[in-house]
């Protein structure tokens, strides 16, 4: 049983390495956000599940699974909030980026309502 746990923990640590490597290597904040958040969330969940598998007691396993579910729920929410905040805050995309759906939607809303719109917020009426 504990070998399975160690294997899961090793996979999680490996994903953490890839995620932080992406955080260092990728060109702009949106690329870094997606690489780092996805990989590190999955890696930490794997570590917690591995700890639950080879943990000492049932209570430990339950708490580890609860923590994994919590991280799995909150980390994408935080990442989306960060991406939205940095886009509205005026951080430009990398020049190699080919598509910006958020800006396209904001443009559509601006043409439909005829108003310049304050910050390109798509739900602005």
């Amino acid at each position, binding site marked *: 049983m504990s070998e399975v746990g160690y294997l899961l923990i090793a996979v999680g640590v490996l994903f953490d*390495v890839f*995620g932080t490597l992406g955080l260092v290597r990728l060109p702009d904040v949106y690329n870094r956000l997606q690489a*780092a958040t996805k990989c590190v969330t999955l890696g930490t969940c794997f570590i917690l599940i591995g*700890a639950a598998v080879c943990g000492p007691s049932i209570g430990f396993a339950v*708490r580890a699974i609860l*923590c994994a579910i919590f991280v799995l729920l909150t980390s994408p*929410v*935080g990442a989306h909030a*960060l991406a939205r905040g940095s886009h*509205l805050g005026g951080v430009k995309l990398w020049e190699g980026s080919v598509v910006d759906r958020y800006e396209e939607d904001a443009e559509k809303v601006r043409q439909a309502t005829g108003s310049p719109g304050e910050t390109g917020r798509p739900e602005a009426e």
Partner: protein
Amino acid sequence: MSVFFFTAFFMVLLLCAFLCLYRLQQGPTAPDRTVAIDVLGTLVVGFCALYALRTGKEFYLNIGIAWALLSFVGTIALAKYLEGKAFDE
């Protein structure tokens, strides 16, 4: 045998944390640094779980849960701040 494994895991996680700190120091814009803080918080949760397993002290897992909660609240607050708006809007 397991001691060797745990030492290796801790070393690799420390390396990840240092990569995050590099981005935190280097990042050209404020959102970059915020992403680095967010990732560092998630890494620490995994670190706490590993430490609880290694030492057999189960309350380190509670510390991990509390850390995840605080990291989430901090990230949301910083994202709102980056947007350039007041908190009560």
